[in-house]
Every structure is written in structure tokens, then in C-alpha cells.
């Protein structure tokens, strides 16, 4: 039996923020419950039935009271609302210097890959004190990536990318759970998140059996699947050149402009005709649905990123740029109250 605790350990900036909010709400709950219990019991005892004959006075009510006990609770609730919303929105925007890691959920395991090409299953290694951005994709059903020690959770939904980000503050090993029911081994879809000091993290990276960076693996796929035949060698310009594409706004045939982000590139591969780039014909590019799995897609995207504008995050060398200075970090993390 593991060691018994009543409060989970906090290992991320977000965890601390959430804990504060939690303690506040617990306080509210305790106070209000206490209040109600005292009201009920004092009245119940003080006004217990003494004689059968006693006829209580006729009290209709009091609008003043009704308003008080509507408003005061409501104000308290508003605090709970704004406080929670603040943290939630801070978690919505990953800082630009976040280190990208890619996670694919699959019945019933977590597949993790790093820009440097390292792979692991049901394990996630991250450096301490650095914003990490996870891109979450699912091969099959809805899963949910849950790290209690970070107080973070995000559903992993097939057909789309969700992302979450955090700054781990304490080296150590923490539980990783799948929190959305996904079938037989749902409760077995668990693993560990290991937070390492920067230097150890670098060793771990170099120790990992990487067959080339994600971008390089993506490049391999790019040739294997024959993307290159069109996108690089194609002379007649039947196909757009993917160089410098990533992160730019693309104009579509129907006039709408879309940002060429991960999701867009993913769609372009699986369902090319969904959005036709202006100046090109539909039905030229075949769909690659079924020919390449989520991991492959992520690699292709990493490749497209790498040939994109130089400072695109995906283009970072394995391990990412040097850790950001701490001061900036806390601001980036933003969730410290």
C-alpha cells in the first residue's frame, strides 16, 4: 500500500495556483455548510414542539432577507468564477518559447515523441522550470491526458489537436492517467511523467535512441509517401511550395485566409480538397488518410515546420533553445497569483 496522503503534491506553477483556489473554495464550502447546519439545528432544537396546542405565528417571509441571501452567496460565487477563469485562461496561451512535445493517445497507451526524434511509451520526460507545450492527438477514441501533480488535464480527441502547457517546478516522478473512459484497459492507460533538472534532461535526450529528429523522420516520410514528387520537384507549379509555408496566412480558393498551423497542415494531408490553396486545382493531391498514422502526421508537420520560417518552434534543434531566464518564465507561466 503506497504512502497515504490527503493532499496531492504540487509540481507545477499551475498546481500552486489551483491549490490556492481550491483552498478558498473549500473554505467557502465549509463555512456555508457550517452555517446551514447551525441554522437547522439551532432552530430545530430551540423551536422543538413543546405543547401540541401551540400554534406558531403566521410569518410570510421577508424580501429583504431573500435578497441578502441571494446576493451575498452570488458575490462569493463570482469570486470563485473569476479566479477560476483567470487561471484557466492563463493556461490557454502557451508562451512562444515553450518546448514542443507530441503525445498520441491510442487504446491503451500514450506514445510520446520529441522534436529530437526520441520516442517513448507511457513515459514523459521534461526539463524542470521550462514551459512545455504538449500537442495531443488520438488514433481512435477520446482519451484524456491527466497529470494530477500539475492539476492539468486535457481531452485527446480524434480528428483534432488539443494542446496543453505547463512549467514543472519540482524534479521527480509523477502519475500520468487517462481520465476519459476509453474502453477495456482505460484504467491501464497510465504512465509516469519524469521531471528532470536541465542537465540530466540533456543527458537523457542524448541517451535516447533517436533515429534522427522528428523533422528528419518527417522528411523520410515525405519522400516515401511521394509528397516530394509534387511539392519539391514539381516544375509546372501544379503544387504549392511548402518552403516557408508554416505559420503564414494562406489564401484559399474561396477567398478565406487560414493560418497554416499544425491543424491546417494535418487537414491538407488527410483531406486535401477540404481547403484548396488559391491558384491550385482540387483533386490533384490525393488523400493520405489511412496511409499515415497520427505519429507520422506529426513528423510530417515537424518537417514542414522545419523547412518553414527559421524561428518556428518546430525548427528548434533537439532539446530546444536554452532555458529561458527564470524571471521571464514566471511571467510566461503567468498562473502564479
Amino acid at each position, binding site marked *: 500500500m503506497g504512502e497515504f496522503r490527503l493532499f496531492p503534491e504540487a509540481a507545477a506553477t499551475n498546481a500552486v495556483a489551483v491549490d490556492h483556489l481550491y483552498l478558498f473554495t473549500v473554505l467557502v464550502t465549509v463555512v456555508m455548510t457550517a452555517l446551514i447546519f447551525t441554522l437547522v439545528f439551532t432552530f430545530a432544537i430551540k423551536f422543538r414542539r413543546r405543547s401540541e396546542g401551540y400554534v406558531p405565528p403566521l410569518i410570510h417571509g421577508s424580501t429583504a432577507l431573500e435578497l441578502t441571501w441571494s446576493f451575498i452567496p452570488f458575490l462569493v460565487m463570482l469570486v470563485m468564477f473569476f479566479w477560476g477563469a483567470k487561471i484557466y485562461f492563463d493556461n490557454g496561451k502557451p508562451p512562444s518559447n515553450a518546448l514542443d512535445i507530441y503525445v498520441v493517445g491510442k487504446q491503451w497507451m500514450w506514445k510520446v515523441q520529441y522534436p529530437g526524434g526520441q520516442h517513448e511509451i507511457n513515459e514523459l520526460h521534461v526539463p524542470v522550470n521550462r514551459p512545455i507545450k504538449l500537442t495531443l492527438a488520438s488514433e481512435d477514441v477520446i482519451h484524456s491526458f491527466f497529470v494530477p501533480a500539475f492539476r492539468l488535464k486535457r481531452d485527446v480527441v480524434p480528428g483534432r489537436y488539443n494542446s496543453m502547457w505547463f512549467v514543472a517546478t519540482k524534479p521527480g516522478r509523477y502519475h500520468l492517467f487517462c481520465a476519459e473512459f476509453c474502453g477495456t484497459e482505460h484504467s491501464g492507460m497510465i504512465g509516469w511523467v519524469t521531471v528532470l533538472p536541465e542537465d540530466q534532461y540533456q543527458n537523457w535526450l542524448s541517451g535516447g535512441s533517436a533515429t534522427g529528429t522528428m523533422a528528419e523522420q518527417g522528411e523520410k516520410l515525405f519522400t516515401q509517401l511521394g509528397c516530394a514528387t509534387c511539392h519539391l520537384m514539381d516544375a509546372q507549379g501544379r503544387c504549392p511550395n511548402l518552403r516557408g509555408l508554416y505559420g503564414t496566412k494562406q489564401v484559399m480558393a474561396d477567398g478565406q485566409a487560414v493560418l497554416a498551423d499544425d491543424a491546417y497542415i494535418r487537414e491538407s494531408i488527410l483531406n486535401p480538397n477540404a481547403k*484548396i490553396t488559391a491558384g491550385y486545382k*482540387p*483533386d490533384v493531391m490525393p488523400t493520405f488518410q489511412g496511409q499515415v498514422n497520427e505519429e507520422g502526421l506529426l513528423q510530417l508537420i515537424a518537417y514542414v515546420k522545419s523547412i518553414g520560417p527559421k524561428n518556428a518552434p518546430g525548427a528548434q534543434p533537439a532539446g530546444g533553445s536554452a532555458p529561458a531566464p527564470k524571471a521571464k518564465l514566471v511571467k510566461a507561466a503567468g498562473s502564479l497569483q
Partner: protein
Amino acid sequence: MADTIAVEHEHTPNLQHHFDNMEQQFSSATLGMWTFLLTEIMFFGGMFGAYTVYRSMYPAAFESTTHYMNVTLGAVNTMVLICSSLTMALAVRSAQVDNQKLLRLMLVLTLIFGFVFLGVKGYEYHEKWVEHLIPGPHFEYNNRAFAHEAQILFFLYFAMTGFHAIHMIVGAGLMTNLIIQSSRGRYSSQYYAPVEIVGLYWHFVDIVWIFLFPLLYLIGAHLKHT
């Protein structure tokens, strides 16, 4: 409580024991039916909700499907239903004015229109089947640009028109019953609640179609002309 005075109690054959008078019984029945139609709105509303979401997501794909819809038949069916609504309304009126012959005639006409509608619908389904437009493994859509999203519309097409058709069939059943009863002279200006109630239902089903027609058949009608 209070000194209880016996409420006077009409005695008409059609008055159920727990109602005080026909007035109460009639207004309860109509309120009941309207309330039921309220739930019907939400029932179809779920599908209209899904429709709205996906049309806002994939406007082009949805427009592309009109090319595969039989707009003419759609329009014809709309008119057929409108006619049936007229006959239904007249049926109720004939009951109100004690015109038994007209009542029967109108009910029969309504039923016939209903069957015409279902017939046409069946024919359309058959078309879709032949053209492999049934969503699923055998779905074929030669406008490959939207091979995926188009399925969503066709799925909604079958779901919405399908549930509408089921309502029509139920309606036809009710109609048949009315015809039988009316041929026994059950209904009169004194007692026509059943006719009124079924009428309300029938008109509602008509209304649903009034929306389905433009939303399913005419999404991209303008494209073919430009």
C-alpha cells in the same frame, strides 16, 4: 377545509368521468396536444442544431450536395403537403358545422395526399440508393472535393426526412382511425376534439417539412446558375 358543494355535472356520452364538463375536456385535450408538439419541436430541434453546426463548418460542402437532390420532387412534395393541410383544416371545419359528408371526404383526401407524399419520398430514397448516396462504406460522391463532409449532409438528410416520414406514417394511422370513426358519425359540432387534435399534429408535420425543403434541397441551388 371548506364546506363542499357538489359541482354540477353534465352528462354527455363523450365526457370522461374525471372531467367536470366538455369545455374542460376539450381545452385539456388541445393544451395537451400543443404541449406534445412543443416536445416535437425539440425532437427535430436536436437535428436542426446539428445541421446548423455542420453547415456553418462546411458551407461549401453542403452547397455541393444540392446538385444531387431532386429539387423538383422536393417542391412537389411541399405542395402536396400544403394541400393536405388545407383539406385537414377543412375537415375540422366540416366537423364544426356538422357536415358529415364533407368531413369524411376531406379526411380521405388528406390521407391520400399523405400517401402521395410518402410515395414520392420513397422514390427519392430509391434514387439516392441507386446513386450510392447512402452514407457509409458504399458512399460515392464524384465531387471528390467534399467526399467527406457531404456524407454529413446526406446523413442528416436521411435522419431528418426519415423521422419526418415516420411522423407522416403515424399521422396516416391516426387519419385512418378518424375516417373509421367519422363514418360511424362519431363527430359533431358538439364533439370534434379528436379531429382537431389530429389536425394539429398533421399541420405540425407539414410545418417541419416547410423548413426541411429549403434547408435540404436548396442549399446550393444558386450555384448551378452561376
